[in-house]
């Protein structure tokens, strides 16, 4: 089973694009999602995300993330609807007040969140992390140290998640009631566990850093990269498309 941020090997159009194009495209979709206030446009962006997912052969994974986001969305939506008190009142009962503005703000937040999260997952699904850091160093002149930091942070997310679930399992075995149905109680129980997680993480990172240094990490320069990245016509097409997308976002 692959994690939701893992690379999925393949040879689709998206896989063959230059990593820089993919980076620009996914960030472009995010920007478009943030500059536009139009609900229809946001829906179009989500449809585009899904279409790209299909194109990259990672439709299943996108769906999984989408269903995960749905839970969060419901929560966020309810929060917005309950706390926005301005605008035309649609329903009122005691202190409970639902307004048209509330519905609109809630929907916009949720759609924007979804439209902006999906492309980032797509980027990581069709681009190897080494290519991502490679292109940052070679094309964008980002020092290798920083590019490496970024990709390592992404790489460590599933590692930390696994560590956390291991800690939770071990503490359940000791009798901590993580199997409670009460979510508030559960959050209270999880917070103290950040200490062992932090300690084990810092330990792991220290070891990785020492290992990298021993292998000559500090000697690496921009020229060390043997792989060269070049644009093909498809790259230009996607880049132009991204610019148009952002322009459309500003327009709507």
């Amino acid at each position, binding site marked *: 089973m692959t994690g939701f941020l893992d690379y999925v090997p393949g040879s689709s159009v998206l896989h063959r694009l230059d990593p820089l194009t993919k980076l620009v495209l996914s960030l472009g979709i995010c920007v478009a999602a943030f500059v536009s206030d139009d609900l229809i446009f946001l829906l179009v962006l989500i449809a585009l995300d899904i279409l790209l997912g299909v194109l990259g052969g990672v439709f299943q994974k996108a769906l999984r993330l989408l269903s995960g986001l749905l839970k969060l969305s419901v929560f966020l939506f309810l929060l917005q609807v309950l706390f926005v008190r301005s605008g035309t009142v649609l329903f009122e009962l005691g202190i409970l007040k639902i307004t048209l503005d509330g519905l609109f703000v809630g929907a916009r937040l949720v759609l924007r969140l979804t439209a902006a999260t999906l492309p980032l997952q797509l980027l990581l699904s069709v681009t190897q992390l080494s290519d991502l850091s490679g292109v940052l160093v070679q094309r964008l002149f980002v020092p290798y140290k920083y590019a490496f930091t970024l990709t390592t942070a992404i790489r460590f997310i599933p590692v930390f998640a696994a560590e956390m679930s291991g800690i939770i*399992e*071990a503490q359940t*075995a000791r009798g901590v009631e993580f199997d409670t149905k009460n979510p508030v109680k559960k959050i209270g129980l999880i917070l103290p566990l950040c200490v062992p997680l932090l300690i084990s993480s810092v330990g792991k990172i220290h070891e990785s850093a020492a290992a990298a240094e021993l292998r000559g990490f500090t000697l690496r320069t921009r020229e060390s990269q043997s792989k060269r990245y070049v644009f093909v016509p498809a790259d230009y097409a996607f880049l132009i498309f991204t610019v148009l997308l952002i322009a459309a976002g500003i327009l709507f």
Partner: protein
Amino acid sequence: MIEFRNVSLQYNSGAAAVHDLNFTVPDGAFVAIIGANGAGKTTAAKLMRGLLKPTSGEVLIDGAATTSLRTSELAKRIGFLFQNPDRQLCKPTVREELAFGLELLGVPDAEVKPRVDAVLEDFRFDPERSPFALSRGERQRLALASLIAVEPKTLILDEPTTGLDYRECMAVLGRVKALHEAGTTVVMVCHDMELVLDFAERVLVFSAGQLLLDGETRKVFRDTETLPKASVLPPQITRLSERLADVLPPADTVEEMEAAIRGRKGEKA
């Protein structure tokens, strides 16, 4: 008593990690689980503790299916030592770490201190040190000590001796043996066949998720047909004794081997 009835477990979308397990661990037993890496030992151990629930079949603890028991409530009855002890440690001092398990189970405050003191005395820990500043072997012992403080009826130990030197290893297993003699049921996953022979009364041999052999330790180690299939090599003395079966009576320990050889010499003279 722990009973496995046609137990299979499959991690999400993978092949079955354990398949159709059937066995019983009676109260007061000392059982070892052996087998190659990835054979399903840890999975079986977690199933016994209710940390994992079977995909099919059922695991019964004292007659109740683990699916009907809350995982955290079982802590009073079954102690579980993880392969990685660091995940079990979470308090700033050794004393608090040892007290934590007791507090979780609702032991009255007045009773906690004497029980923690007894364990501290036994394991000779400095109560004010941070668990995270201890060496790997000490952390392993602390994780075990915090289980023992709770005095569970059953102990499940997943590779308790990995990474320990001989002295630490004996310190840990000496404690476990004493508990077993006092009536605690022990299930231990272990890669060291010498230790298995010395401590376990019964062995379960796992291979590729299946239970290949289940029997008395000495008998299992003499099953030269089946053991290679599980990539298990019996202890050296047992192998030597096996080779000399035509001239020497069976021997599984240094002492027995010595007696066998000396006995034979006496016989010749």
